[in-house]
């Protein structure tokens, strides 16, 4: 039986169309049909100048964890134009990006629970509540709850809000309460036998297949691929901090959930280290931006590809310049795009509910898939 799952389906997390062929209730074939949320993001970036105008747009790609996207653009533009970033700004970037990662993973956990539990599940609301706490902190820091536009070429736009002590206290409160909140999630979902029955051993993708599909981020790490750009291609302040890359060998939906939840712990570890550093930073060395010319015109025909570890995986940007102040070609390598297509391998022979669960565990953001 041919079944259209989506484009308007409660479990597609946006507008995704899965062309599914069913055998009874088992999935014989599934093909994601994308493009419903295509917003010409690459073209828009090609029509805007490097210096200021592109920066608001990365926030709109992966709209659950926005700041890593900004860093992807900041990194590529800074390498293209040889811009130095002050160390203090790097710490601010690292901290805010880890907050954004927590945001993204919280929503991923919540929506995954929603897919497995059904509507009105408590887990989703608790996840949103914790996400909201992060948003409050980021609102104090960046001035917006979602579309932060916090990064600038050569630094960030704002130092920590005054009074700093209050902000540190707020962050520390959050970090201190986080283990308790995570414990609650473990009580609610991961230790729940029915949940384990639903997720362990379903949506399996082994490491080799995952690599062939180009999966990155939590999806790859849940298949045992030890790959994290924060460690393998260090940027920002990550190589100075003490943290671990989380991997799981389960290859299934459950492992992907566990990776996300453990990554939240790692992010919290990174944030608390960043806060300690920021607190002790000498007052007269708090440079948040380096000196960047008002107009940036990189040499013609320079090509740069730089990637950062977004919440969903390797988020890369390729830019080719043509000597003007706007990129000649702007290409986004989005992790969700590759992760989504591994659904084909995951859902083969599974039941429809597991197809939905696998889709939820991939945590695709259609804004990033279609761009």
């Amino acid at each position, binding site marked *: 039986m041919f079944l259209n799952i989506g484009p308007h389906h*409660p479990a597609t997390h946006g507008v995704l169309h899965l062309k599914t062929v069913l055998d009874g*209730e088992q999935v014989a074939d599934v093909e994601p049909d994308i493009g419903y949320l295509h917003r010409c993001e690459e073209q828009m970036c090609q029509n805007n100048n490097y210096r200021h105008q592109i920066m608001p747009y990365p926030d709109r790609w992966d709209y659950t964890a926005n700041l890593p996207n900004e860093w992807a653009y900041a990194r590529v533009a800074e390498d293209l134009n040889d811009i130095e970033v002050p160390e203090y700004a790097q710490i601010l970037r690292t901290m805010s990006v880890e907050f954004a990662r927590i945001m993204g993973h919280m929503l991923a956990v919540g929506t995954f629970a*929603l897919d497995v539990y*059904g509507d009105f599940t408590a887990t989703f609301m608790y996840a949103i509540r914790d996400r909201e706490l992060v948003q409050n902190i980021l609102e104090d820091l960046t001035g917006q709850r979602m579309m932060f536009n916090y990064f600038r070429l050569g630094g960030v736009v704002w130092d920590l809000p005054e009074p700093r002590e209050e902000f540190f206290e707020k962050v520390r409160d959050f970090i201190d309460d986080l283990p308790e909140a995570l414990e609650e999630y473990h009580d609610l979902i991961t230790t*729940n036998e029915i949940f384990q*029955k639903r997720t362990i051993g379903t949506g399996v993708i082994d490491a080799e297949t995952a690599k062939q599909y180009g999966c990155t981020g939590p999806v790859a790490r849940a298949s045992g691929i030890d790959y994290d750009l924060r460690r393998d291609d260090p940027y920002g302040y990550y190589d100075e901090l003490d943290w671990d890359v989380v991997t799981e060998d389960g290859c299934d939906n459950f492992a992907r959930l566990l990776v996300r939840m453990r990554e939240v712990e790692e992010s919290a570890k990174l944030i608390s280290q960043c806060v300690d550093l920021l607190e002790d930073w000498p007052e007269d060395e708090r440079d948040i931006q380096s000196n960047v010319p008002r107009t940036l015109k990189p040499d013609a025909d320079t090509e740069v590809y730089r990637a950062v570890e977004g919440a969903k995986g390797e988020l890369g940007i390729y830019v080719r310049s043509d000597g003007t102040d706007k990129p000649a070609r702007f290409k986004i390598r989005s992790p969700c795009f590759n992760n989504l297509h591994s659904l084909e391998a995951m859902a083969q022979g599974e039941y*429809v*509910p597991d197809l*939905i669960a696998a889709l939820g565990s991939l945590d695709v953001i259609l804004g990033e898939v279609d761009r």
Partner: protein
Amino acid sequence: MSLAPLQADPVLLPETIARALFGGGDLAIWQEALAAFLGAFVVGNIMLAMTGVAGPWAKRKITAAFTDRIAVNRVGPAGLLIIVADAVRLLGKELIIPEGADRPAYDLAPLVVASSALLGFAVIPMGQIFGVNLMLADPEIGLAFVFAAASIATLGLAMAGYASNNKYSLMGGLRAIAQNIAYEIPLILTAASVVLFTDTLQMSGIVAAQQEPLFTVAGITIPSWFAFVNPFAFVLFVVANLAEVGRNPFDVPEAPTEIIAGYQTEYSSVYFVLFYLGEFLHIFLGGAIIATVFLGGPAGPFLPESLNFVWFVIKIWAVFLFTQWARSAVPRVRIDQLIEIGWKGMLVMSLANLVLTAVIVGVML
């Protein structure tokens, strides 16, 4: 344990009405019919009012409590008037009938679902309110009748699923059938283990059998409710009942995130309201069966017997609360796992329970 002495036959509701209307003595057939009709009208309205509250208001409030939200509180005191607003909203919507729908079946399905649940209430002893016994009929086969009436709903779901001309609905309908067959049997087998104690299928007899004190702890007398006499059967029954009414973790026929509310997908406006009501009526009917069979019917402390309808209501609301609670915390099982639990787990356990109870009853009584 001996059988509790049956109380003097309680006067049923239609008879009470007939006496009030026409005095005592022999009644013509139309008088009896009118009284029965009025009685059914009263009981039906009580249940509909209850679901009317439960559907739009209590469900929101309860779900909100579990998820740290506030829920409706603006329209009327504590948001109670949201019921009116919801009724206007739902009834005011356009009734969209999909092209290619199988007309008589499509139209009848919601009626079947809602009415089958109402039918079940006919034999439920709901206790007394100001001395008036709210029970419509008390046939010998009461318990069997309730289960028979409740399972007609499956027919309605299958009709809806088939007639909607929608693949999701069809899947929902098929799932509903598979689930109901798998869980109806353990449900009835578990109830049968209670019947072994009571020696009767008559609802009033089952209630009467639970009136004796079981034992006394620290001055508190525990009545011989079958939930205390046979807790294992009680747990089995509650779980099977969750599947029977299609609530988490067994809401696979609906499964909004998988098959988009299954058989309901194509229903709107009045038909949707009927489905919605039917669903809640079903939960309450399940609660009423649990209350009658396992929780001593309308019996309860503190209140005089003439008001024990209040206890009955409390009990079925407790079951409703439990379904909502399970919904907030328990994931939905997959359809194959559901069938597996049903046939391999629940059926075996309920059979074991039945045999064990039979042995115990045979040896001890």
